[in-house]
């Protein structure tokens, strides 16, 4: 019997430009969430908090780990209902044009035939990355206008980073006109392939190059330090948006290096002159 041990760190900062931090996060093993709210004070912050509340309930009450995707889908649906209701109530009280919406990126430990796995889900442009062997691998695919342009070949990844409409997202929770687009994409990863996960809002991924994030995640072993440093770097880089990061490490896995990984390292060391 091997229990899965998770270590985590989380940090969030309002940034240098915004007045309200509309990001929220949940770091309650085995459920982790980053939500980036939209709509301004009492709008986006409430929407993202609703997401954290609903998923927090899963963390405390437990869930069926064999049907994780259905569990997440139901929870997102519940969030959607609550946010739409909340916005309608605000409008009914006279706040004309009141809007509240949020992104969500979720990492949840599930299990299949006794094997624990990471189940990830995303909606909007908050991201899930995995970090291993010094490399940062973006797992989630943004639901954003620029991602659609990249997918269609109209622009490159580099263009996307500076595109004027890079903040326009195509799926979100709580936005009535996105009603049919409150669907998340789901991802299953075996734990050994994702010993460190990063969930973050676009205030992190939009301010830092992937290489900068990778450098921090590789340098700082403690996930609390890593999360703090990632957010601090995003703020230092300009802090144009709320920046939030959750870093989760799976610890205690017996790591079996694959045959060709050994061989590659051997040949690399040989080329570098480390071995005779």
């Amino acid at each position, binding site marked *: 019997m091997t229990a*899965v041990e998770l270590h985590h760190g989380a940090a969030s900062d309002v940034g240098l430009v915004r007045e309200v931090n509309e990001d929220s996060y949940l770091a309650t093993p085995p459920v982790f969430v980053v939500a980036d709210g939209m709509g301004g004070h009492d709008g986006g912050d409430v929407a993202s908090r609703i997401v954290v509340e609903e998923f927090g309930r899963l963390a405390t009450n437990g869930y069926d780990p064999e049907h994780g995707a259905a569990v997440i889908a139901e929870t997102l649906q519940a969030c959607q209902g609550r946010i739409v209701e909340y916005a309608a109530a605000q409008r009914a009280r006279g706040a004309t044009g009141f809007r509240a919406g949020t992104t969500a990126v979720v990492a949840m430990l599930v299990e299949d035939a006794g094997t624990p796995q990471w189940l990830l889900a995303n909606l909007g442009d908050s991201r899930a990355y995995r970090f291993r062997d010094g490399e940062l*691998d973006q797992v989630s695919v943004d639901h954003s206008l620029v991602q659609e342009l990249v997918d269609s070949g109209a622009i490159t990844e580099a263009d996307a980073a500076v595109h004027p409409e890079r903040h326009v997202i195509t799926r979100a929770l709580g936005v009535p006109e996105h009603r049919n687009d409150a669907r998340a994409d789901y991802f299953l990863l075996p734990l050994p392939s994702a010993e460190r996960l990063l969930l973050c809002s676009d205030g992190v991924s939009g301010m830092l190059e992937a290489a900068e994030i990778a450098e921090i995640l590789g340098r700082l072993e403690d996930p609390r330090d890593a999360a703090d440093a990632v957010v601090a770097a995003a703020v230092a880089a300009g802090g144009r948006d709320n920046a939030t990061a959750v870093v989760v490490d799976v610890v205690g896995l017996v790591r079996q290096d694959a045959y060709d990984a050994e061989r590659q390292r051997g040949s690399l060391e040989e080329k570098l002159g480390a071995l005779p």
Partner: protein
Amino acid sequence: MSEPSTWEREGAARSFQPGDWYAVLGPHVVVLLPPSQRQRAAATWSAVDAGAGFDEVLDAVLADGLRGLPAFALVGRRDPARSAVTALLRGPVRASFTADGETVAVDGDAAVTWVERTFATVQEMVLVAEPVAAGPQLPAGDGLVRVSRLQQPAAAAVPEPLPEPLPEALRVPEPEPEPAPQEASGLDLVEELLTEPVVVLPEPDDLPPVPPPAPGGAAVPPPPPFPPPAFDADQAGDHDGLTETGRGPAVEPSPATSRPVARLAFSHGETVDVDRPVVIGRAPEARRFEPHDQPRLVTVPSLHQEISATHVEVRPGAGADHGLAVATDLGSTNGTVVVQPGLGPEELRPGIPVQLLPGAVIDLGDGVTVHVTNP
């Protein structure tokens, strides 16, 4: 007492014209759902297939709330032993019901929530969900089909004496009184099954109970034995865009049945039922799948790294492949070979699903084979 017609009888088959709407057809109920409601259609079919009654089917249709459901139609007999037919319509769905030469039209747009009508007896019903393309009427039994128009003609009225109303206290809840002069047909079996207590969960009945909260929130639900799959460093190099799974080429929803369509016996000893997508590889991952389609990841040993991290997928087939397993190579480096019984080896083309007959053998390379058998 009027002479009720039977709502469903052998020979009183339905007919439909193809379209984009989902029609869930059961022995006692018919449900129409808009093209956007794929998951709801799957869940509703699960309920109907499990023999759920009218009210339980309504629960399944509304399980995800009414707000996200712009339109639907649910027509059937709330009491299978009686002839009365109830119709619920929401949104741009129109229906007409004919009895004794009289036709009543019902329009789902005429109410904020839904329009409800009950008819003592119905001889013919037509449901129209979207503009109907000219074309032949196709026969439909029970199942899940995509339609624009559905018609349920009645057979000649069969005398079906209703049971005398009993005082509530005397009524025995189970079994339901059978309509007496029903001739022997497959339907009797359905009726019989329906008198048994029915579990209406849209999910498979092997649903394990929700685990208690993890102690102290420290780690996971029950810590399972965990044989760590082989870790490999080059796996990142495998993400060539073709390894995306869960978005199989199948356009139609996989039938949301929990019944496995095949069993996979792996050469390393593992046995897996194909009741959902099974993603096989050296260190398999699944990307961008839908929540009702959560795959099972099966890690196979690959001593010489000939098997790709995410190599091949086997899933229950949809549409023409319904009831069979289909295999799809997910862009593996060294390919997948399938040997169907009595045929020569066939190399799978990446992304193209191939039906698997019982007795087929899938060869992933590196000495790993998978035998396909009946479940």
